């Protein structure tokens, strides 16, 4: 295969969507931008508006509604649980419905509980939408070239994270091995710690060998490195940032206009 052909070849089905043109560092800022401002207010309206507007942007991300729903499912299941804690233990205010020991359900806590449950979803959504298709190497390149983080650290961490698949394999195999050795029937907690230990041994060993291989290829020396995959910022990054800002402003504005805005620390 000639050089040109190799360079043009892409994975089957990896079509470019709008979000792919946004720099990964920008995506990180977007994730923060789409979550932190929501903390200013605990109310139902801002959460709903944020969720709605983000879902409107779905076509830009290249994910299907089904994929998003599937990844959102565990969050949606967990949301009421978070709300439950607020329901029972929020500082009582308004009409008291029920009280037992330390737990008190009041009018206020009911409102908070609903808002909180909704917020769990609103906070989990950006990560799913933004990072569903991110390539770790691309993220590493961006962090080192755009965010100017030290390349030794970024690439070292990137190389180390490649081991994840190997560890998952190891974890599964160790589970089988413990069944074979007669200790698979009881003591799940003990098994967890014993497997955790061996995983850490593998981690340190593989990491040490990988570090040696990387150093042997000139990594970590004082030579200024070049980048064969340049990572840059474009106009699209600015547009994405403005868009995220707009979503947040609209969500909070809606809450203020409808009078449900409630500053978190009151």
């Amino acid at each position, binding site marked *: 295969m000639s050089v040109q052909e190799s360079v043009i070849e892409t994975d089957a089905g990896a079509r470019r969507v709008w979000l792919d043109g946004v720099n990964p560092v920008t995506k990180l800022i977007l*994730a*923060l931008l789409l*979550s932190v401002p929501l*903390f200013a207010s*605990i109310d139902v309206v801002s959460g709903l508006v944020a969720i709605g507007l983000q879902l409107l942007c779905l076509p830009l991300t290249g994910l299907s509604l089904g994929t998003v729903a599937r*990844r959102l499912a*565990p*969050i949606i*299941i*967990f949301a009421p*649980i*978070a709300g439950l*804690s*607020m329901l*029972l*233990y929020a*500082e*009582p205010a308004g009409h008291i419905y029920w009280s037992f020991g*330390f*737990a008190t359900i009041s009018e206020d806590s009911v409102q*908070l509980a609903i808002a*909180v449950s909704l*917020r769990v979803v609103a*906070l*989990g959504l*950006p*990560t799913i939408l933004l990072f569903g298709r991110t390539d770790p190497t691309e993220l590493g390149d961006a962090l080192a070239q755009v965010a100017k983080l030290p390349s030794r*650290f970024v690439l*070292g*961490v990137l*190389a*180390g*994270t490649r*081991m*994840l698949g190997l*560890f998952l394999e190891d*974890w599964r195999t160790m589970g089988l091995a413990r069944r074979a050795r007669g200790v698979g029937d009881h003591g799940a907690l003990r098994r*967890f710690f014993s497997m*955790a*230990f061996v*995983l*850490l*041994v593998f*981690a*340190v*060993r*593989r*990491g*040490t060998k*990988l*570090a*040696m291989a*990387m*150093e042997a290829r000139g*990594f*970590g*020396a*004082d030579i200024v490195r070049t980048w064969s995959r340049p990572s840059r910022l474009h106009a699209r990054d600015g547009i994405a940032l403005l868009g995220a800002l707009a979503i947040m402003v609209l969500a909070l504005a809606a809450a203020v206009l409808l009078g449900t805005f409630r500053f*978190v*620390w009151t």
Partner: protein
Amino acid sequence: MSTSTRTPAATSTGVGTNPWRWRVVDIVVAAVLGVAVGLLFWGWNVVGGAWFGAADALTPGLGGIAVGIWLIGGVIGGLVIRKPGAALVVEVVAAIVSMLIGNVWGVSTVLSGLVQGLGAELIFAIFLYRRFGLGVAALAGVGAGAAAWVFELFYGSSPNILKSLEFNTIYLVCVAVSGAVLAGVVGWLLVRALAKTGALSRFAAGRELAREV
């Protein structure tokens, strides 16, 4: 018999003798440890998450008991690498990995990891990165737990500052104890056992304990 000259190995990488500069092996092992611990977090999410969710929802603050394991990244990082920032790096990488594999807390996980790592880091820094015994490890666990408590007071989908004083006090005590035991003591034991396998031979933690061969 010819005399042999003993020379310290030449360091053309410019590392010099600064004991706090990270070598390549420090960076990569911190990353790989972070990945392994992140996997353990995800596994513990299943066990501990269920307890945390149930206890947190139904009891006034006892959910804190399971939190300790999620703090272990910082302790292990600090004890193995023993350089400034090690606790932070391992805990953050672990948080990122556990978020990426899939958990219900999303980006918050990374921010939690950052804060918890800083909590452990602070303790190691107080001891000037020179003391790494059981006591320091337990304190680092408490530090990480306390940092998590402060963080969850203000941040998150249901900030605890809105909850009652009893809830928050009980939660703090539980988190501190869990941090000391499940992160500090367990972390210290794990690192010691690691050292005994000889895997840590390139680290001070391993050289202290390895039997002379």
